[in-house]
């Protein structure tokens, strides 16, 4: 084939440029450590890389979530186990109180310790987490869950909300337990009751209702599971008219209980019906209502308070001694129920923590595998790249040398 002089030069230049392009690409691969520089280099791998990167970043986030989970759950675990230890101590004190040789004065000493323990447990139950949120108040993180009402009884102000953390794409682990479940809804050996003010009461400041206790268990057992409503009636209904008065009814069928209709109200008076005693304090408005909720559950703080109250007040007369025995027996059963409940939750916490552990190791394995996959997809094989580079530079040198040789060949050199 005929070659023009221009062609000889063009060919030389083009082939050198091609090889230079290859060298520069290999060099870029080596300096970025990546095989796929742009999606066009390997569109399928590029899409995979995006996907694997997303999965990796999710796994990384899940691992961060697990750290949060572990911190919070361990705090909960420690708190519950502290509460459980204290309860064990109170149980010991209860057993001690049953000792026949104890005098009323001795028991008052025990009651003193129990009072202190109550404060200690209440503080534990109001523990806050690292974010300054109450651990056991459900969704109402800013609400102190266990506070004393106007009558000095502890009431629960949180809710039953339970927070979950996403620790894997399909796994969410509970990271909180409500104080209600843990410390309040505990089976009681005797049927008992708790009191509530209606949330729509209008009196300002609100009047409060306080439980005193079950006076006559048999009568109350017959009433159970009925609830009672104490409703403040219009002033016109009282005798004589114009006085604050209330009526007590069954909640289910509105029957009036024990003739307590339009009873004249005095703040702090004992209200006794169906074997139970309670008090209302303050100045309720007409239409305000208070509920007596019979229940077979009793909060642990209530159990302890009842116990300490009885230890303080019961004397050494035989009748009181008999009452004491009953009280101690029911308290022991209730305390055992508390301890059982706490250990149930310790168990479930342990289970969650171990799930978290296995999820964590899954994430670690996954991360390892994905990083390997990512590396296979995008990382450069250095050995191959470097030998390719030396090959290409060799070709480039050869092209340059041969070009300079060929370019100087000309017949005119001989026409002198």
């Amino acid at each position: 084939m005929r070659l023009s002089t221009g062609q000889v030069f063009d060919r030389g230049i083009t082939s050198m440029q091609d090889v230079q392009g290859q060298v520069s690409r290999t060099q870029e691969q080596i300096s970025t450590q990546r095989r796929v520089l742009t999606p066009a280099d390997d569109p399928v791998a590029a899409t995979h890389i995006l996907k694997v990167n997303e999965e990796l970043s999710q796994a990384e986030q899940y691992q961060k979530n697990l750290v949060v989970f572990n911190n919070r759950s361990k705090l909960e675990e420690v708190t519950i186990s502290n509460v459980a230890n204290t309860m064990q101590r109170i149980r010991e004190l209860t057993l001690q109180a049953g000792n026949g040789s104890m005098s009323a004065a001795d028991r008052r000493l025990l009651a003193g310790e129990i009072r202190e323990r109550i404060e200690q447990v209440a503080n534990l139950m109001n523990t806050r987490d690292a974010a300054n949120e109450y651990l056991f108040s459900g969704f109402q993180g800013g609400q102190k869950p266990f506070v004393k009402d106007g009558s000095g009884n502890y009431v629960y102000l949180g809710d039953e909300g339970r927070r979950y953390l996403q620790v894997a794409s399909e796994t969410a682990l509970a990271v909180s337990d409500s104080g209600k479940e843990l410390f309040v809804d505990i089976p009681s050996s005797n049927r008992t009751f708790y009191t509530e003010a209606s949330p729509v009461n209008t009196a300002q400041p609100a009047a409060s209702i306080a439980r005193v206790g079950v006076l006559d268990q048999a009568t109350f057992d017959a009433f159970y599971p009925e609830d009672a409503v104490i409703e403040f009636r219009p002033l016109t209904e009282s005798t004589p008219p114009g006085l604050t008065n209330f009526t007590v009814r069954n909640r289910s069928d509105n029957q009036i209980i024990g003739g307590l209709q339009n009873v004249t109200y005095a703040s702090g008076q004992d209200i006794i019906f169906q074997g139970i005693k309670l008090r209302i304090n303050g100045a309720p408005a007409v239409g305000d209502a208070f509920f007596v909720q019979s229940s077979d559950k009793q909060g642990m703080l209530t159990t302890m308070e009842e116990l300490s109250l009885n230890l303080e007040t019961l004397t050494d007369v035989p009748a009181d001694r008999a009452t004491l025995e009953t009280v101690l027996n029911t308290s022991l059963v209730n305390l055992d129920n508390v301890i059982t409940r706490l250990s149930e939750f310790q168990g479930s916490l342990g289970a969650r923590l171990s799930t978290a552990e296995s999820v964590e190791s899954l994430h670690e394995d996954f991360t390892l595998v994905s990083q390997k996959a990512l590396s296979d997809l995008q990382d450069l094989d250095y050995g191959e790249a470097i030998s390719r580079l030396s090959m290409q530079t060799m070709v480039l040198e050869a092209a340059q040398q041969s070009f300079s040789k060929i370019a100087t060949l000309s017949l005119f050199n001989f026409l002198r």
Partner: protein
Amino acid sequence: MAGSDLLNLAVAGMNAQRSILGTIGHNISNANTEGYSRQQVVLETPPPQFSGGGYFGTGVTQQTIRRLANDYVSSQLRTDNAIFNEMDTYLGKMESVDNLLADARTGMAPGMQQFFSALQTAANDPSSLPARQLVISQGNSLVDRFHNLDQRLRAFNMEVNKQVTSLAARVTALAKSIAEMNQEVTAAVGAGQGNMPNDLLDKRDKLLKELSGYIGIQTVGQDDGSVNVLISKGQALVVGKSYNPLLTKASADNPDRLDVGLPAGVDGLQDASDNLSGGQLGGYLTFRNEVLRDAQNTLGRLALGMADGINQQHALGMDLEGRLGGLFFSDINDSIATKGRVVLDSSNLPPNDRSLNVSITDTSLLTTSDYDLDFTGPANDLYVLRRRSDNEIVSQGVISTMFPSTISVDGFTINLVAGSFQAGDHFMIQPVHRGAVNMEMAINRNQSLALAAPLRTLSSTQNRGSGALELNTVEDVSTQAFAAQSGALSPPLLIRFNSATSYDILDNSDPKAPVALIPPRTERTFLPGVENDIFSSDSGILEVRSEGALAGALNAGANNGYPAETFTISRVDTLSGSVVTQTVNTALNASARTVADQLNAVTGLSANAYTRMKVGNIVDGGSLSLELNGQLVTGLSVLALASNINNTALLTNAGIRASTDGTTLTITSEKGDDLSLIVGGGVGDSVDVTDMTGAATTVSGGSIVTEGGVLEVEMLSGMTFTSTGAGLFTSGPLPLSVFMGYTLKLNGLPQAGDTFLVDYNSRGSADNRNALMLNALQNVQQLDGKGSTYINAYSQLVENIGTRSSQIKINHEASKGLLEQSQETRDSLSGVNLDEEAAKLLEHEMAYNASAQVVTMARSLFDTLLRVVGA
């Protein structure tokens, strides 16, 4: 033979060789001139002369100077040059887009990941203000990424427009030069008496080649030496010595886009931008048509999908201050966005009064295509809506004469608001094009981030069973339930179990006296041990109640007295879209329970039945006895009767129970069985029975009465329910909505008397349920007909662009090879080889010397002759 002949012969030879040497010199000087074709002198032997003994040769003459070029090769070279330049330009642009999308700094993927990570962090600690602030910052940076990417793509478009304009000008200038060259060539061919002006031809070929680098051309040579140049599909750019300018103009239906074409009419142009190919211009246009629009639309759709998905979920939550969640990103259907989705064609006939907009209805159905809405005529209200991606007609018909008129397809709705739409009107509809640029953050206070769910459920401490109530989903916060402004649920609910298998849902606004909901939810059936759904997620769910003349009325006799009834139920089949009608026939005296079972067998219906009878004023004349559904119940007070009924296993097992307030006995069949009461004894014995219609009847001894139950039937959206009437149902029962906007789930084994509350989640600062739902959007297939997650949709774009650019890369290599090959073919034929010229130089120098030698010899012959004559 004369001596002068010899001399002439020699001079002719010398002349010929000298002109050859001259041409060689010309070749050598132009060895490096671009576009130069080597030239060759063509010699010819003139006709011989007869002179007795034969024909004598008369020397040599120069026939012409030949240019070594081949039209076919040149034209192939131009074609290959056009393709190569197109690919080269296209590839260059593709690589920039490619890098832009996949780059960690500019691409969307890391932005989306960081946004969802921030949401997770906030979910871990929902009341933490810094964690909330991080979500807002990452939201802002996500929006910025959308804007930047869209901005870059828009900048590409502007660059394309700029390049197209300057290339069109360059093409026009070249066309002008070629036309001028044509004129010169034609003149030279005439003057040269048929000899070709070789160097002019080279110059013109060079211009043609340059032109082919800008735009694909076809050339047609003419007899007079001129050449015509055609572009696109045979449109003439140059004809002889005249030319047409290549013009650009903003597109009538899209101001962002430049049309390119040859002049048509008065300052108009015939848009050829979809047909032009080849050259840099072709490269830019292909890039614009195939890549840029698609990339912007895909990005826009992703932005719309994310904004809509996050907004919808965010609206269902509750913020740190107890308010319902508002917008997170700006409303995808705000008035600026909806108007921006329509481009009015500037060539639509006046008056310029058409007002229309496009709202997005379902982001999962959106495509990445643009649409053309044409009023095709002949009547003014006939329209055709065409999808550009596949040129399918997606909707056509007649717009309603009553504005606003709507056209809904592919996840969006075109609202024709007002104006004189007329035949010939054209609108470009771009539902997703501006999605990315319109995306903005709507939320700016971290307290307004709705990470909590707006509702909480509570179980009463006194519950004896193990039932657990949970919020299942929040569907819609625009319902009555969330209408109260003060962060309260209206009404709060009390769920009370009447037995282990039946519950009422009551309005707990006043906890001391909960009242029935409207419509009432009474004696709902509970299935113990499985998950029971309360309320429907179907926003169009309706309920009809049995309010016929006989429903719940007391009937004298052993039957409830309900006549046979036929119900007609229609529903829209989800697959075919057709209306399916079904009838249900009830038997004479069928109990409400039986009818409910029949209705529950119908797809989309859910029926609940119960029966309630009140018995009071028990008068015992001495021999009163009562038998309920075949069971003798003893006792003469309501208290004793209630207790006896509740202790009769055959009755309680059938779901029949009793309660009393001391004066009245209430008997309930929670399943809707008939309640049949036989009053034994004589005339002096009687009870008063009040049925569910409220009518009271005194039943004396020795008679039997039966009361049938009532029904509530819920039907899914789009269903209708009618009856032949006069029995349980009226003929056209009034459907009432029972959609609450949220659903609950109730598990476990509750017992009679157990209660649960549903209330607003006031102070729920530690709640992260909505944050978890927002997070879940990351892995939910939300786009492309619910086939792609957000990140998938994006990686598809990256893959598409990547695949296309790798394909272009291959094509680019191929076109480069072809160009090199045809360049070689051309150079091989037309290029100057200096060695060759050197050799020829020697050859022709020798020939010249030889001819000169002949002159010398002719002179010596002449001298010899003169000497002989002179002597």
